[in-house]
């Protein structure tokens, strides 16, 4: 992990993070193979378990940054695994994958101690973005942080002020919340459903591209008139706020 790897603490250079360790507990072997491959390509170390008992065994050995667990598994279901872990005081973030996808199922999953929930089928990009969000949660800006800065874009939550290069930017309440969500996750891909959940507290797939319209408004407010855009579209995935 980070503190055991001397490479990551080289001063003066951007830290090269050691690969995050993921545990995927999924009985659908074909899907698992694809997910493992996709997650590895995104830079994660992935261990795989094909059933609940083996998964729980691996999970209790510890050392994983995020656990991805299917809801319905042979021997032990995903929620039981989370229950056992939480009872032992293990707070490792768990992402639940479920084929049920009803409102109740989601609530049950989160009540059982899951940290996020994804309904099958999902795009790989959605899973990667959510895993990234979970893995960063530990060292992301604390909830009480009130000032954020990405490049020359600054946000002050208390003063409810946004400036870019010192110039004041007027935002509506929702645009402000949208930007706050992005500012708390700089350089991190956020998907449309993550935005809908995080900013609007709505958990469903909108039929239309409503989030895109909101993002394009925010983009107009933040990036128009500046040579360097900060909000970027990630094709097939979502958006990222990044200084590049």
């Amino acid at each position, binding site marked *: 992990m980070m503190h055991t790897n001397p490479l990551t603490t080289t001063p003066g250079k951007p830290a090269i993070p050691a690969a995050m360790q993921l545990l995927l507990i999924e009985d659908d072997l074909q899907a698992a193979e694809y997910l493992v491959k996709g997650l590895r390509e995104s830079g994660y170390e992935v261990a795989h378990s094909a059933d609940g008992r083996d998964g729980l065994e691996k999970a209790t050995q510890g050392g994983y940054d995020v656990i991805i667990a299917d809801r319905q598994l042979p021997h032990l279901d995903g929620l039981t695994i989370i229950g056992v872990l939480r009872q032992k005081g293990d707070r490792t973030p768990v992402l639940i994958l479920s084929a049920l996808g009803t409102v109740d199922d*989601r609530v049950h999953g989160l009540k059982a101690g899951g940290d996020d929930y994804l309904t099958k089928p999902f795009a790989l990009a959605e899973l990667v973005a959510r895993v990234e969000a979970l893995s960063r949660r530990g060292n992301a800006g604390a909830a009480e942080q009130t000032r954020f800065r990405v490049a020359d874009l600054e946000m002050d939550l208390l003063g409810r002020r946004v400036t870019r290069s010192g110039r004041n930017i007027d935002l509506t309440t929702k645009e402000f919340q949208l930007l706050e969500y992005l500012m708390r996750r700089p350089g991190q891909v956020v998907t449309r459903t993550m935005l809908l959940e995080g900013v609007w507290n709505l958990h469903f797939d909108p*039929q239309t591209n409503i989030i895109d319209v909101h993002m394009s408004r925010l983009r107009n407010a933040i990036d128009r008139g500046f040579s360097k855009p900060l909000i970027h579209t990630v094709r097939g995935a979502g958006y990222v706020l990044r200084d590049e």
Partner: protein
Amino acid sequence: MSNETFRLSSARLAVLYVLIVAVGITSVLTTVYVLTARVLDREVDAVIQAEVNGLVEDYQQDGLLGLISTLHTRSDSWGRSGAVYLLSDPYGTRIAGNIARWPNQIDSAGRWIEFEIDASEHGGVVAHPVRAQVFRLPSGRRLLIGTDILERKRLASRLSSAMWWGSGLSVALAALLGVAYSTRVRRRVGAIATTCENIMDGDLTQRLAIEGAHDEFDELSAAVNQMLERIGQQTAVLRTTFDSAAHDLRAPLYRARVRIEEALQHPDVLGSSREAMEATLAELDRVQRTLGTLLQIAQAEGRGVEMELEELDLAALAREIVDLYQPEAGARGIALICNATAGATVHGNRQLLAQALVNLLENALKYVPAGGHVAVGVEPRAQTVVLDVADDGPGVPAEDRQRILQPFIRLERDRQQAGSGLGLSLVAAVIRLHRATIELLDHQPGLLVRCELPMSASAG
């Protein structure tokens, strides 16, 4: 007793019961009293009559002197026999007999009269009622023959008070029984109603209490419990079926998606093959969404599952969602407005209500042409909250308005439009789940969808 209580049939029954008991007992006791009093009266009258006959005989045999002598003899025994005699001259002065003077109120002959005389008794003076008959003798003298009816009066008064106590006690007992019965009925019906409400709220595990009294309520409760057992089993079967259907349909969909996504990552997939694969992916997502919606409808209609319910402000939710769709409406050239009045608190599932509202809004935005209007209204009423989504689009013909709430029913003219035909069905299911009503109305022009939800009890 309040009007509300009185309207309860058990309370009405109890009152009716008390009334019947009161009338019944009172009439029985009154009859007994009247008959007994009459028998006593007759007895008294017969005694007096015998006395009269005896005296008349004496008078006829021995004349006035004979009568006086008999009266003297008999008067001595007054107090034991209770006989009262008085013979007076035409002016009321006593000639013979055992009372001092002619009673004030009497002078007509041949009539039954009643009066009181004072007699000393145990050192005190007691008024004795007397019943008597008055005769006028040929000489103008008057004769009064009577009897002391104190004992009879006492008996009658005791009888009457016994009657009153009896009636009163019976009525009080009847009232007590009536109230107890009515309370018991109300309590048991109330318990049944409460359990039924809990069950309607989704807790199918609840059962009606059987109190072991082997009464009609136990019989009813047992029957209802049996019914619930069956419904519970069927719901469980249905739920398992849906869960496995969801799993068994989603798993292959998921694998198909994975395969295509994986293939699309190869850089050598180009041009029309890439387009076809991307279109297939979009199609798969559509199937997945339809499946998801169907499951949600099934879940909402099933009601056999616990729903996460919370107190929520429908006005705030409407504003949020209108705000979410505002840019979309703007892009389509549609004016979207929201008239939401505060205080519209309902007990509901935020995600499902949001989904319902989004479906209504997306529907309106889909069918209203550019330049049109869509209005979302939330208005708290006395007991309900009214949620309106109105547009000035093409509307829905009256004969189709009920039909299009059913799954997969679409209007002929919309066949070409994208959509699953499930959006409104989900809305209807969600609305029904919230024990609310949904109506499709003519907005002249356009469509007005009006949902009326019960206002949360805890709201001011």
